[in-house]
């Protein structure tokens, strides 16, 4: 019974995905179809058009195996051995440095904004 449940919900999620892809294609939206499907599902849940319990276990199943789904793509690195044996190896420290900057910026801004708001609340 549980298996049928998950299977039906997977079909529903795929439906949202395909709808997103179709909209992207039709209106030429500069966003991946999967993100459009994500936004559609979020709005549908939020407006209670689509109930959470009709999609919860299917989503849980998909997300539990999320990392499996991108392994075939990461294996694609075998085609770029040459890049990383040359100048391309520099891309690794570049990505690391840029990651630090993103971490510092997002952490500081959110922490500062949260503190500023808490202080404002205290005063009023």
């Amino acid at each position: 019974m549980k298996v049928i449940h998950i299977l039906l919900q997977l079909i529903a999620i795929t439906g949202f995905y395909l709808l997103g892809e179709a909209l992207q294609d039709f209106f030429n939206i500069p966003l991946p179809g999967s993100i459009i499907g994500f936004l559609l599902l979020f709005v549908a849940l939020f407006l209670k058009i689509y109930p959470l319990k009709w999609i919860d276990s299917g989503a849980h199943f998909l997300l539990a195996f999320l990392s499996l789904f991108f392994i075939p793509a990461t294996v694609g690195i075998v085609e770029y051995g040459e890049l990383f044996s040359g100048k391309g190896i520099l891309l690794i420290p570049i990505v690391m440095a840029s990651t630090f900057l993103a971490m510092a910026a997002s952490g500081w801004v959110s922490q500062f904004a949260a503190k500023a708001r808490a202080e404002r609340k205290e005063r009023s």
Partner: protein
Amino acid sequence: MEFTLAAVFFAVLTVAVYLLTNFMYLRYRKTLLNPVLASTAILSSILVLGNIPYDTYMEGGSWIGTFLGPAVVALAIPLYKQKDLLFANLLPIISGIATGVAVGMASGILFTQLFRFSEELILTVLPKSLTTPVAMQVASNLGGIPSLAAVFVMVAGFTGYIIGPVFLKWLHIDSAIGRGIALGTSAHGMGTARAFEYGQQETSMSSVAMTLSAVLGALLGPVAAWLLLL
């Protein structure tokens, strides 16, 4: 999509290697045993040692890859479950994530341009802080290389996972919201895995940051690329 014996073999092999590495990771909890990293290393070694072309592997590998799109859609459920937390802290969350995504993309472009990398590689590095399925999609839409983008996503993830906590301490980012948003925005799922070690609040913040930065990144990616090409 062709139904060949080789395709079935590589699809089954991928799942088997994943389940094995996942089991080892859950058992020994060593960062280096991360299932994505370990599976990628094992499968790549098999291809290289067996002299198997990537295209042959992908006959089966692409079957598994088709689940990526629906999996991105499924991310709406954890975000929906966090909606109260999100709306209660909307401004700090959105401003932090937006700044982080913008700084990450701008610095990625700047550094790669500084070392005179090709436009294709610049566009491949661009979405590195986004969660893998979205980063691959963004890279491919912009004219980068999706599989290589996935590699840089892993580098960003490991950077946040391994050095993140030390770095955050050094920067005096010590609130739950600051830590969670920083880890999720810069290091997606790996950062969120690390946030889990701080506690529930950090984890929620980080998963919200991971999801929203993917959406914002997908929106900002084309803008950043357009600015770059001016």
